[in-house]
């Protein structure tokens, strides 16, 4: 009697067992394919798009970041929606910079779709053009994905550092870089009007004290309460229209964030409750701030 034949290996669905980092790699490839099919140009940023050596070995990403060519954002969002992706947060509610919308897919997880990269005062068109100049295809999931050149990648990482309190990227993205490379990054930052956030990332923000957006970058780099954030955004808003937008967003409940907190679309009653709580939080922070500034009565 013949031996049993060798069993044929099987291919199993992996949506629940695939490690997050591997899923992010595949998601980059998926997003790239959707962009190509819809005639959209974009650049992959951070995570597996970063050149080896600019981030610590073993660095893990939890989502995909892409920067869409200006003018193609709406088309790309429509393409994502047509492939089963769902909006998780919108451009105007994602952050103080209104720079990205977040989308989610049950297989691929989250992608941050950037309309612009926070930091430069240059136009999104100028920034995208500069980031694209030395771009090249980086294989991610064995799929060619366009990424910025080395100097732009370093600036992207440093501008991201400027928006948080962590220094994790500074060692590899800045300190170990040659003087020539550092000068190239500074030159690009100057060209794009990103000197202030670059200084914030590198710990030299005080060189820019007195500039309108100083408080905003100080808040992001050092942290603080929500009132600090709104005050910083108010100071950074340079036009009456921008200040009106800050006031409106300060008082408005972020429905995208509320939906994520609740795990379902908020009902009108839930929005009202959140609105009251939000105003209460702002009010208590204001009272605390005022109390801190009141002169203390000297003990008799």
């Amino acid at each position, binding site marked *: 009697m013949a031996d049993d034949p060798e069993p044929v*290996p099987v291919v199993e669905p992996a949506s629940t067992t695939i490690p997050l980092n591997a899923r992010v790699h595949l998601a980059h490839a998926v997003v790239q394919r959707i962009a190509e099919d819809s005639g959209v140009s974009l650049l992959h940023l951070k995570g597996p798009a970063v050149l080896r050596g600019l981030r610590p070995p073993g660095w893990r990403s939890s989502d995909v970041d892409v920067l869409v060519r200006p003018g193609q954002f709406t088309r790309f969002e429509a393409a994502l929606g047509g492939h089963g992706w769902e909006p998780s947060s919108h451009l105007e509610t994602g952050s103080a910079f209104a720079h990205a919308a977040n989308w989610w897919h049950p297989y691929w997880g989250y992608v941050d779709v950037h309309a612009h990269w926070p930091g430069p005062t240059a136009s999104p068109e100028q920034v995208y053009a500069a980031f694209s100049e030395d771009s090249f295809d980086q294989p991610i999931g*064995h799929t060619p994905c366009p990424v910025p050149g080395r100097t732009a990648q370093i600036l992207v990482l440093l501008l991201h550092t400027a928006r948080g309190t962590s220094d994790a990227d500074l060692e590899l993205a800045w300190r170990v870089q040659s003087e020539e490379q550092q000068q190239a990054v500074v030159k690009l930052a100057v060209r794009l009007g990103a000197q202030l956030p670059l200084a914030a990332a590198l710990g030299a923000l005080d060189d820019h004290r007195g500039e309108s957006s100083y408080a905003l970058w100080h808040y992001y780099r050092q942290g603080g309460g929500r009132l600090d954030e709104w005050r910083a955004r108010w100071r950074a808003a340079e036009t009456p229209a921008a200040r009106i937008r800050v006031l409106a967003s300060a008082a408005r409940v972020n429905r995208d964030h509320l939906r994520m907190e609740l795990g379902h679309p908020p009902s009108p009653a839930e929005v009202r409750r959140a609105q009251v709580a939000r105003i209460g939080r702002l009010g208590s922070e204001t009272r605390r701030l005022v109390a801190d500034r009141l002169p203390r009565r000297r003990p008799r």
Partner: protein
Amino acid sequence: MTVERYAVAPGVAWVDADEMGLDRTELYVARLPAGPPLLLIDAAWAIWLAMAETGTMAEIVARTAELTESAPDDIETAVADFLDGLVRQGLASVTRTAEE
């Protein structure tokens, strides 16, 4: 006589666990852009890697035998069946050329 060469199909993304720093004999594959993500374990992992590195059936069988520490004759049928399955699912492509 024709020679069949197998390859990862265009529009298919894949990641080896080793690339993620994971000590696992598995990889993750997806047709773009719809998916779903698929998990290939052990023998399936070995055949996929062998296909990505080489091309002809003989080469794939030989490389799979190395990776799985098997005798090529013992695994040839299973490898051929698995490759046919990959082609049917659109995960692999096969080209036939006349042997010189």
